[in-house]
């Protein structure tokens, strides 16, 4: 069995996974390749360090329809590891391919390593409460969340093998239509460098203006807990930060009126600095924060916005 392969319908993510792939190449002594649907990117992949690029070409443009083709390729090449970009499309495809190959699959791996002829991964469980380490026998499939790794840098003059495989990926009886981009009502908070999070500590929607003012003062985007988006509908769901929402990775995350349940903390754990403001000293948010003020956000937020604006 040989070969470490990477698949994502998103080329940027594929390049991120290449970083992980190159680590595995070093520890497993096997070449690393990228399976792609995008023939334009093949040179870029080689430059970033891929030994091989396989371009899949089918008549059905729906990315998920390539599950069979990917599984076939993995099976024929006797691939050891397939890393899949953990977008929702990627997770869908990975699970289907794993089923076809009767192989193991770990979702949302935070780390991927080779040890004892297995792939060892770590991932979160119980809504972010626990970290599970597990071993997958080979062939192993792993989905990795976008931005877990940074893009492998391009180096001029690298050589590699590029080939195209024609596939029949029609799915009779199924049509995909009406593909509409989701219009964000603001910037993408998942890439924001500063974020202010709002929670149930706010009594009414109008009071969120205080958080907006603070956000403006520090140049931050606004995010929120699940309840604020899904239950109260004070903010659109793309602002919801948590296990089944956005993950943010800002320099600073200020949580205002948020109790700090695990499901929310999971979404902000990669923040460089976490600040919490809440009335309840025993709220779990303070255990998750670098700095905290125990107090009424109605009093503290305006003071904070003012103090920052003055600087």
């Amino acid at each position: 069995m040989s070969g470490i392969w990477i698949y994502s319908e998103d080329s940027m993510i594929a390049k991120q996974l290449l970083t992980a792939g190159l680590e595995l190449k070093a520890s497993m002594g096997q070449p690393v390749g990228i399976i792609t649907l995008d023939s334009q990117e093949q040179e870029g992949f080689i430059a970033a360090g891929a030994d091989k690029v396989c371009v899949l070409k089918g008549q059905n443009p729906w990315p998920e329809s390539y599950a069979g083709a990917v599984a076939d390729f993995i099976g024929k090449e006797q691939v050891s590891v397939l890393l899949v970009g953990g977008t929702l499309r990627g997770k869908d495809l990975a699970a289907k391919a794993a089923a076809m190959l009767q192989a193991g699959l770990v979702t949302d791996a935070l780390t991927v390593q080779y040890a004892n002829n297995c792939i060892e991964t770590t991932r979160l469980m119980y809504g972010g409460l626990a970290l599970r380490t597990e071993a997958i026998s080979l062939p192993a499939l792993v989905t990795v969340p976008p931005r877990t790794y940074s893009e492998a840098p391009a180096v001029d003059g690298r050589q590699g093998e590029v080939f195209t495989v024609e596939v029949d990926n029609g799915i009779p009886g199924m049509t995909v239509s009406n593909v509409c981009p989701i219009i964000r009502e603001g910037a993408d908070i998942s890439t924001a460098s500063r974020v202010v999070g709002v929670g149930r500590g706010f009594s009414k929607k109008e009071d969120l203006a205080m958080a907006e003012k603070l956000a403006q003062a520090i140049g931050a985007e606004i995010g929120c807990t699940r309840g604020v988006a899904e239950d109260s509908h004070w903010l659109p769901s793309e602002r919801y930060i948590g296990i089944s929402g956005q993950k943010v990775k800002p320099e600073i995350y200020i949580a205002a009126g948020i109790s700090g349940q695990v499901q929310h903390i999971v979404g902000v754990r990669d923040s460089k600095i976490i600040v919490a403001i809440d009335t309840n000293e025993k709220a779990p948010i303070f255990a998750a924060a670098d700095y905290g003020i125990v107090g009424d956000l109605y009093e503290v937020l305006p003071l904070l916005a003012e103090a920052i604006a003055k600087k």
Partner: protein
Amino acid sequence: MPKILVCYKWVLDEQDIKINPGDLSLDTSRAKYKISDYDKNAIEAATQLVEAHEGSVDALTFGNDKVKQSLKDVLSRGPGKVQWIGDPAFEQADAFVTANVLAAAIRNNESYDLIICGEGSADSYSQQVAPRLATILGIPAVTFVQELSIDGSRIIATRKLGDCTEVVEVQGSAVISVLPEINKPRIPSLKQVMAASKKPSQELKIADLQLSTEDLQAKTVNLSVKGYVMNRKNILFKETNQADNVAKLVASLAQEGVC
């Protein structure tokens, strides 16, 4: 008149799980079980379809020996009957095994028009069982669905995928996994709770399901589960005057270089 199956998982309520301070191991001794939250959305979706189109909803679950406690709970939420497999094999099972077991149980029944699952389970959230199940059964999977309807033998699903939505139509049977935003699961009325006792439940034994040893052997092996604790500074400003607290905070942030 669609014949619908909902698969659900009986999981530990993560709110009851404690982390032992010394070795960060998990203390589940006080944890109660619940129907996995996203599966409630699946059950609700199925129930709503059947209210609109008539037909039936069956429930199916694979769990450990505690899974018997879930039966009346699930029956009070809409399904007309529940099949359950409670087996020690569950403790080591990964999505590969679970999908094999569910598929084997499903093959024992007449075919379903629609199989609905939650997008992932509340405990491990692997988001794999629905697409795996579909692949084993040889039918399409439509995942991450936020809107679902039926038109005769056509299934129409709107998927929500991070940066876009798309509409997928399938002619014939399919496995659907639903997002929590698809609906708000109803709170069972008290008559529904009482009526649950009168609905049938059927135990299935793994031995009767024609599964090979390989099918029941997990591909992923658990090495350890530890409480996930972040190491943060935990510096609290507790002066009586909030202006003082704010000043100290701003000074600290300036030192950190973030403000």
